[in-house]
């Protein structure tokens, strides 16, 4: 199953999540060098809230703030289910 949410507009991101045999997080961001850890932390915290650990998450980021990353991930999770 796969879930996708978000856009590539400025300050947004597209989150793609699918089932996997292990946890994988891939981040493609226009601010990768500065915010990679921050983005990853938001994704990990949200996955923990939803008790998900065997998923593959791709975040294509265009400068999204934490609240946007979290919201898009939650929507992608809900759509995956």
């Amino acid at each position, binding site marked *: 199953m796969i879930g996708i949410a978000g856009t590539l507009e400025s300050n947004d991101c597209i989150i793609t999540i699918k089932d996997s045999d292990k946890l994988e997080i891939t981040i493609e961001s226009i601010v990768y060098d500065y915010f990679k850890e921050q983005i990853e932390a938001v994704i990990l915290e949200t996955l923990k809230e939803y008790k998900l650990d065997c998923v593959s998450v791709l975040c294509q980021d265009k400068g999204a703030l934490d*609240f*946007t990353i979290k919201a898009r991930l*939650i929507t992608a999770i809900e*759509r995956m289910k």
Partner: protein
Amino acid sequence: MRRSLLFIPGNNPSMLQNSDVFEADSIIIDLEDAVNITEKDSARNLVKSYLNTKKKFNSEMIVRINGMDTKYYQDDLNSIVSDQIDAIMLPKASSQNLAKLDEILTEIEGKNHLTKRIKIIPIVELASSLIEVNSIASSKRVDGILLGAEDFTSDMEVYRTKEGKEISYARSAIAVASVANHIEAIDTPFTDVNDFIGLEEDIKNSLQLGMKAKAAIHPNQIEIINRMYAPTPDQIVWAKQIMAALENANKNKLGAFSVNGKMVDKPVIERASKILKKAEIFNID
């Protein structure tokens, strides 16, 4: 008390996170017309996540939910009703669906232990709603009424014009019902975002009919709306003269008095008092 209410698309992170720089008195986060039908879930989650970023916002926070004739409104309410919002804006409002919304809000407020009572701003956008505008204005939690002219003129099968004759009656009816029920009449947005002269003329028409605030669909309309729905410097000077003369009359135990050759009676004093109250709220000297 409001002058400007700015619509922000609920599925647009950039607009949401910048909403407080636009200096609108109220922000209307839109889950309805500004959100594609395939993205209702996404917008709802984004708005909920955004609202959780702060305990309190500088502007009044209003959320326009999807209509109660859709399958989305209950999820909208369950997601976003919280202490971070001040009001729900209800499309295609009727006294019947306002009563139902009041019940749902009471239930959610209790369940989530809210510390405030969420207000409702109904949108009058059907002929059937306009007929019962007084009932709508006197409904529980209603704090203001927005005229939805695009849907209203569509319902009436007439064309919208910049001159606005076709909505004069609707404006008047909403303004009268609002004043009678001590709530605010909020005018419909002016949809040509590049026509500032047209916007000013539209506001003049709405003010003349008793509208007290206006919704906006673009941030570049806010400055004009804030300026024109606030007391003018001349009005403030006049009001201060009236109140100073009143104070003097009371001190000297005078029953009747005049200012600039004109008799001052109770309606004049009330008008002056309201002007100064507005000036204080909007921080105008």
